[in-house]
């Protein structure tokens, strides 16, 4: 067992990460040890990264405890790079983290500087000279390579860079040269952000955090208006929208709504969020208020021109779709269902109830089991087959279902329905329509010779 992290006091006593626990105990007998929890650390880092999304959409994880933020074009929103760095560091410190940070031309340079020269902001083009005095460890290479540098007498990045590239490549490989180049700002290594950048986003920052829910919704509507303009320019509508609420104390709440058809009407969007927020099992806790609200269209699709919607049928369809969206926002899209036919004669599989929001127009036609002017051949309510005990005599059929005895007045059958052999080795079913003395009409089937099941009830 080795130490993975030490606090300041332990460090001052000469302990450092990587030290075997036994050695550490020998140095400091009164050592307090806590088991490392890697997954929890990762989760925490993710949470901090979520929080950093408030500053720039491009946030990449740099485990075990680093984050890389691409602040290109985002710094001016907070009044410049200096203020931004100061704010991030101060806010994180307030949340109880030990923070070091730096801004530089490339991610690797910033990374190296953050570890060794906290708080520095490198002017454009000065990456090389700033990074040069740092020790080679700052390159974050593997231990063997770092050790090899040290043995070769190359103690700083600058010294390493002074060697010719051919020498370095021959000795340490091309990967090392690339790492060196990116650290010195000679090459660009793009960071891989955690989240894909949505094509459409709008956000609003508040000088004073907002608490009232109506203000939140009004803001969502305002942002939806801005988003709507962007969407309209490209002839698209949103299918999925995320509203992200950044709380002043660092907590983040993200709420998503989906629509059945491309939408860009701010009023509709606000209504969907209202439904969703109303129905949340854990309501939005404003705490001390939100200082940033962002609306993103996470998925957008081309949408036909609004002018095509004048015909009555189209308008009706649109209204129904909006209703389905509202209900889906409140109850979840898996609860708002539309029926589609299925190409099989197995009764329970002949139709499917699919989420209405995602339902494609049916490609199959509905097919009736009955002929014209005939009585229904399929029940209105289908049960999962329930066993019944059948008492059959010469001229009468009686069966017991759910503790009640039904005497058949009329029986018709059998209608044989063969199971699909390529799905399962189920026996074929012989279906009977049965009407009892009170007029209730049941759908029973026989499997094999003696097993009877009740599968549905007719109207």
């Amino acid at each position, binding site marked *: 067992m080795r130490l993975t992290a030490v606090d300041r006091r332990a460090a001052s006593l000469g302990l450092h990460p990587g030290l075997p626990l036994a050695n550490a105990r020998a140095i400091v007998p009164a050592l307090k040890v806590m088991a490392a929890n890697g997954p929890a650390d990762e989760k925490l880092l993710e949470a901090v990264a979520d929080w950093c999304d408030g500053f720039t959409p491009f946030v990449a994880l740099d485990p075990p405890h680093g984050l890389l933020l691409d602040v290109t074009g985002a710094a001016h929103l907070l009044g410049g790079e200096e203020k931004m760095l100061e704010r991030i560091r101060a806010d994180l410190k307030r949340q109880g983290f030990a923070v070091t940070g730096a801004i530089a031309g490339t991610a690797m340079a910033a990374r190296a500087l953050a570890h060794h020269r906290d708080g520095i902001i490198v002017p454009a083009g000065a990456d090389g000279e700033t990074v040069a005095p740092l020790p080679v460890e700052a390159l974050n290479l593997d231990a063997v390579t770092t050790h090899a540098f040290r043995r070769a007498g190359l103690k700083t990045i600058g010294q390493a860079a002074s060697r010719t590239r051919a020498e370095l490549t021959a000795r340490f490989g091309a990967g090392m040269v690339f790492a060196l180049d990116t650290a010195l700002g000679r090459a660009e290594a793009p960071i891989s952000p955690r989240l894909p950048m949505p094509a459409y986003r709008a956000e609003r920052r508040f000088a004073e955090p907002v608490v009232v829910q109506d203000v939140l919704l009004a803001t969502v509507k305002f942002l939806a208006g801005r988003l709507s303009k962007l969407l309209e320019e490209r002839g698209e509508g949103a299918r999925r929208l995320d509203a992200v609420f950044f709380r002043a104390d660092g907590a983040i709440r993200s709420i998503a709504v989906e629509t059945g058809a491309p939408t860009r009407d701010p009023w509709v969007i606000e209504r969907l969020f209202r439904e969703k927020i109303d129905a949340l099992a854990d309501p939005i806790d404003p705490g001390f208020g939100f200082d940033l609200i962002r609306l993103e269209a996470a998925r957008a699709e081309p949408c036909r021109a609004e002018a095509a919607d004048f015909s009555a049928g189209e308008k009706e369809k649109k209204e129904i779709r909006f209703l389905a969206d509202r209900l889906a926002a409140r109850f979840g899209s898996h609860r708002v269902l539309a*029926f589609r036919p299925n190409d099989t004669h197995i009764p329970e599989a002949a139709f499917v109830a699919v989420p209405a929001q995602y339902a494609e127009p049916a490609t199959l036609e509905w097919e009736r089991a009955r002929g014209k002017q005939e009585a229904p051949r399929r*029940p209105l309510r289908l049960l999962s087959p329930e066993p019944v005990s059948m008492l059959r005599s010469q001229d009468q059929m009686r069966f017991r279902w759910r503790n009640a005895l039904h005497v058949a007045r009329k029986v018709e059958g059998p209608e044989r329905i063969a199971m699909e052999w390529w799905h399962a080795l189920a026996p074929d079913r012989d279906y009977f329509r049965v*009407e009892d003395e009170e007029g209730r*009409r049941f759908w029973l089937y026989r499997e094999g010779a003696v097993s009877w099941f009740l599968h*549905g009830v007719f109207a």
Partner: protein
Amino acid sequence: MSAAHEKIAFLRATLAKAGPPEIRVPLGHVGADACLAGGLKKGALHEVFAIASHETAATGFTAALAARIGGPLLWIRQDYAALEHGELAATGFLELGLDPSRILLLRVPDVAGALRAASDALTCKALGTVVIEIVGAPKLLDLVAHRRLALGTAESGVTALLLRFGAEPDIGVAETRWCVRAAPSGEDEDWGRPVFDAALTRNRHGPPGQWAMEWSCDDGEFRPADPGAVVSAPADRPAQAAMAQASAA
């Protein structure tokens, strides 16, 4: 004096214009339509109570009413209703003459959700009917809830059908209330057409009644059941049974 009269007459005329015109949908069954002053009122709340163990008959009757009213149909039902009474089958609706692709099915976790969804859906003028299927007699479904539904229907013109299982009819503000059970189908060779023993026990604009109604799946209308079919006079509703005989005569 006459000026005041004129004014009142003018106001009445304005009111008559402002209110939605009353639309009644004939069911096709002559006796019932006569009782209902022409048919089932559109844009109103109607209740259908299922007699115990005749839930599917009541479901079919409700579906048939919705088919008469026409337009897209939203069917709201609770999660566990499917376990007890069976899942609604699209093929079953199709056999009854309803187009399953015009049906939107909403599964809600509880009664509060059902009522909430219903009041939202009743604002959607594109819908024809909203069916609210409620099992048991929940406290939430009180007079206020009934009234709210009725108001919603009146404002939008969408018809609400409240389908009740395992509940005794009590207070209510519904336009009509039906107690439905299955009735034996005709004696012909192709038996099994849906026949309902439907008792109209509450009718705000007419007398109650009871009829054996057959639903014609092909023509999409009710008609008097085969005279050969016998409607059992329910022992638990003597007064209404007598009424039914009177109105059937």
